[in-house]
């Protein structure tokens, strides 16, 4: 080909064409949200790339997990044994409390808390895009992941599923600027909204009145309103409360309890259903067995949370 004699449309025409296409895509994707299903397919399409891009990191982790001395392993094992002992003791108590709680709820004729089904997922990649806080996980539609599913780590709520692909899906984090979680103060049940601030260690709370009883160090737990996140999981701890009477509302900031910047394993929650959602990938020993507790037979409504519970 001879680049001196140009052929085909000129660069200007091409630019105008692609900018027009971009404009259409942005409009339909952002304003109309008409690409939600297409996104799933696109996500499946590019997931091989994500899996390949993740291999160096996986090799590093593999190496760091395998190159370890016997002493370290033994110490670790010892620690785990101690942990297991204390956890199983707590578990025994929890069993009793669960039964008692179910009985009391039945007496009050309020809906029973259903058990949550859990699935473990591993992070594939963290977005390098500084404008959005999203991560990609190695579970997709084949594992039963669905849009809007709550995602946790060991410390608290991390986010929810945004797009589901065939073998991977995208999680939007609670610190993303377009995300908000309904929370309540654990100490007194005061309801708040925790919005992402775009900073990885900061959540903001809008519309907190001056009379609100909120202090630095208060734990905020999910309130279950909005029915996206199950009730009672820790979300953030209050970092600063600035009472400025010249402002209309109190400025409250909090830090997420989940370690958003060092996520590795995540827990996907879903309400218990008949069919098992972690049938595939059983070769990897990652799926958690759901707790074996037998609560009373569920009565009536299957909604785990109701507004009534908020008033407790």
């Amino acid at each position, binding site marked *: 080909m001879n680049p001196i004699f140009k052929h085909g449309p000129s660069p200007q025409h091409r630019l105008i064409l692609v900018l027009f296409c971009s*404009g259409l*895509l942005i409009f339909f994707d952002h304003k109309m949200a008409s690409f939600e299903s297409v996104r799933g397919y696109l996500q499946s399409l590019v997931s091989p790339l994500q899996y390949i891009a993740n291999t160096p990191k996986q090799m590093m982790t593999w190496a760091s997990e395998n190159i370890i001395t016997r002493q370290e392993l033994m110490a670790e094992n010892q620690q785990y044994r101690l942990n297991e002992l204390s956890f199983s003791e707590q578990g025994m108590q929890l069993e009793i409390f669960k039964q008692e709680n179910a009985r009391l709820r039945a007496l009050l004729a309020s809906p029973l808390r259903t058990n949550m089904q859990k699935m473990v997922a591993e992070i594939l990649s963290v977005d390098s895009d500084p*404008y959005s806080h999203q991560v990609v996980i190695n579970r997709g539609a084949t594992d039963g992941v669905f849009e809007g599913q709550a995602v946790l780590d060991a410390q608290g709520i991390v986010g929810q599923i945004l797009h589901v692909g065939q073998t991977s899906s995208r999680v939007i984090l609670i610190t993303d600027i377009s995300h908000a979680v309904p929370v309540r103060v654990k100490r007194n049940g005061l309801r708040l909204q925790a919005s992402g601030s*775009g900073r990885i260690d900061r959540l903001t709370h809008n519309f907190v009145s001056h009379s609100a009883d909120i202090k630095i160090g208060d734990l905020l737990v999910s309130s279950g309103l909005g029915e996206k996140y199950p009730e009672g999981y820790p979300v953030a701890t209050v970092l600063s409360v600035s009472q400025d009477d010249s402002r209309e509302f109190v400025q409250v900031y909090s830090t997420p309890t989940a370690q958003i910047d060092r996520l590795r394993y995540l827990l996907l929650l879903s309400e218990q259903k008949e069919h098992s959602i972690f049938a595939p990938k059983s070769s990897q020993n990652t799926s958690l067995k759901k707790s074996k507790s037998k609560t009373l037979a569920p009565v009536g409504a299957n909604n785990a949370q109701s507004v009534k519970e908020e008033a407790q």
Partner: protein
Amino acid sequence: MFAHNGIIVILTLVIALMATIMPLPLSVDAFRPDWVLIILIYWTMALPSRVNIITAWMMGLLLDVLLGSVLGLHAAAMAIAIYIVAENFQKIRNFSLWQQAFITGVLSALYHLVVFWSQRFLIDVTFLSSYLYPVITSVILWPWMFLLLRKVRRHFSIA
């Protein structure tokens, strides 16, 4: 696209995409160079009849999918940056390596600013100077990538 070892061009672009989404520690993540942009600039400069605005737009669209941003956003920014290269490829070819590196920096800054402006327009983001850190690494990376890609182009006699 596939004639004359065109597959190598695609391969370099795919590697660039992977380098863009590869997980990095948080401290160096802000300095991640614009791999895709650099490689597109080189190929547009070297083979303007084969790699041009349309290719850039498609790569941008793939980036949108990979990064989970609004579809068409990185695509538009990438197309605008590559349009400038496609219009002036004969001039840029004759510049010295350092002048080219400077131009890469300008284009990278333009790319990030276009992305920022459209994000600002869509969702309320505020400007942090860290959004422009990739410009520095892109400038540093350009001479090395240029020499490497020229070697690749000559070795596989991609025309």
